[in-house]
């Protein structure tokens, strides 16, 4: 097998991990609160800026800055729910889309105002490691492993704990949650915090590989939505699988043709699959 193709496939797998994390967060919020956060990737952008600012201006070590950035975006998630979503929870879906869409522009503009449009990064130079004949960048490997650990922690929380079970239950029958002694509003807040925390973790992992600028959300936002729809909106396992399918398409087409063409191809495959299976690849 072609060594360079193998390398592209490996990179696709590594990219898939972070995309899967984003898809999990978006699907979790959609499944539980029944709202699509259009500005989800902009929360990632906020997390990237938070980590960059803490390391650059406050001179925090990277790990501490990462932890703080995750907590910061989790808090942002709670604020998004309280200030934007909660007041319009009962209104038409289009109004909710417009509101979170407005939040997208607000966050982009706020970032431009605070940090300008310069590209910023951590200035880390992590080595490239050699596996036999293939070269893998350590930053991608770290991002992949951390993303899988994050996904595994989420899985354990949702399947083993009382609160996690309640989060899954809300998505199945909202009305009777009160009969279980569950305060639905608190479940929504917790879910928003977890969704924010996942965006924060993704932000830290992406900042290992990419520069942050006010429009970085546009690089990951559309592809995250595409992955969620492909996996079936709200279907967390479907989204997880779809993240790896899309990242493979991007990686392999990027190798054979070009990166730009690979995104075109990914969207073509997406449109075709959605026409064939509008309920998502794992939908019923």
């Amino acid at each position, binding site marked *: 097998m072609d060594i360079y193709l193998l390398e592209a496939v490996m990179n696709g797998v590594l990219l898939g991990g972070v995309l899967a994390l984003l898809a999990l967060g978006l699907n979790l919020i959609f499944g539980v609160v029944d709202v699509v956060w259009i500005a989800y990737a902009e929360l990632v952008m906020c997390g990237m800026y938070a980590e960059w600012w803490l390391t650059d201006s406050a001179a925090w070590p990277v790990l501490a800055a990462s932890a703080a950035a995750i907590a910061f975006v989790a808090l942002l998630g709670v604020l998004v729910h309280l200030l934007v979503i909660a007041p319009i929870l009962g209104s038409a879906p289009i109004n909710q889309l417009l509101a979170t869409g407005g939040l997208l522009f607000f966050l982009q503009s706020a970032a431009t105002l605070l940090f300008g449009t310069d590209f910023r990064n951590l200035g880390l130079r992590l080595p490239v490691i050699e596996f036999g004949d293939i070269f893998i960048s350590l930053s991608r490997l770290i991002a992949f492993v951390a993303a899988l650990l994050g996904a595994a922690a989420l899985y354990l929380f949702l399947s083993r704990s009382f609160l996690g079970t309640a989060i899954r239950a809300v998505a*199945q029958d909202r009305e009777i949650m009160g009969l*279980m002694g569950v305060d639905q509003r608190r479940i929504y807040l917790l879910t928003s915090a977890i969704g924010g925390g996942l965006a924060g973790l993704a932000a830290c992992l992406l900042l290992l590989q990419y520069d942050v600028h006010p429009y970085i959300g546009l690089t990951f936002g559309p592809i995250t939505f595409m992955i969620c729809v492909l996996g079936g909106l709200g279907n967390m396992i479907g989204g997880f699988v779809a993240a790896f399918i899309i990242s493979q398409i991007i990686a392999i087409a990027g190798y054979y043709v070009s990166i730009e063409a690979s995104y075109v191809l990914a969207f073509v495959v997406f449109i075709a699959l959605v026409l064939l299976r509008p309920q998502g690849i794992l939908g019923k």
Partner: protein
Amino acid sequence: MLTVTDVSAGYGSFQALFGVSLAVAAGEAVAVIGANGAGKTTLMRVISGLLPASGGGFALDGRALEALPAHRIVAAGIAHVPENRRLFPRLTVEENLRMGAFIPAARKHFAERLAWVYELFPRLLDRRRQPAGTLSGGEQQMCAIGRALMSKPKLLLMDEPSAGLAPLVVEQVFNLVRRIRAEGFTVLIVEQNVQQVLDIADRAYLLDRGRIRLSGAAGELARNEEIRQAYMGI
């Protein structure tokens, strides 16, 4: 134990209950019977806090509950087995039972209560890893009752436990209710299956178009000519 005083309630401009009063003493099984649309489910929804009363109030052991939201009423000691069971279909049997023990007071005793519910309904133990949506109707009712028992309520509300089940299964469900009673639980049960519910209840109320029309010992009501004609088809 439970006193309901002059409760009125409805949906928008539609009023379903007009000044309903009733009482349930500790250890009793009390039935509320009546035709479809008489307001039985509305009464249950008011007592469990799913629907706010527009007038009147209710209290458990002297503590007024009408101003509390549903999730606080569970913590106060009232568990509700809702109409149509309303299990979480994609959660397993055991996860449904876990939801029943969500309140902090029940969480502490989760393991022992789970063992107790499995002892009460061994069938649930066989099915514990199965999604609740795949259970048979009778098993689902067991799971719904088990879920409500997980909070060890002072008062168990049951809304039409026999609805939508085959006659043989209905018999099983009423046997379940008998066992719950034998365990010492206080039960307020709403049923259209008048004959069978009067068989297991101590006392009963007849609800007619949102008002209590008759009340008395279950045996007495079972012999009442009007009830026999209108609700038992005898």
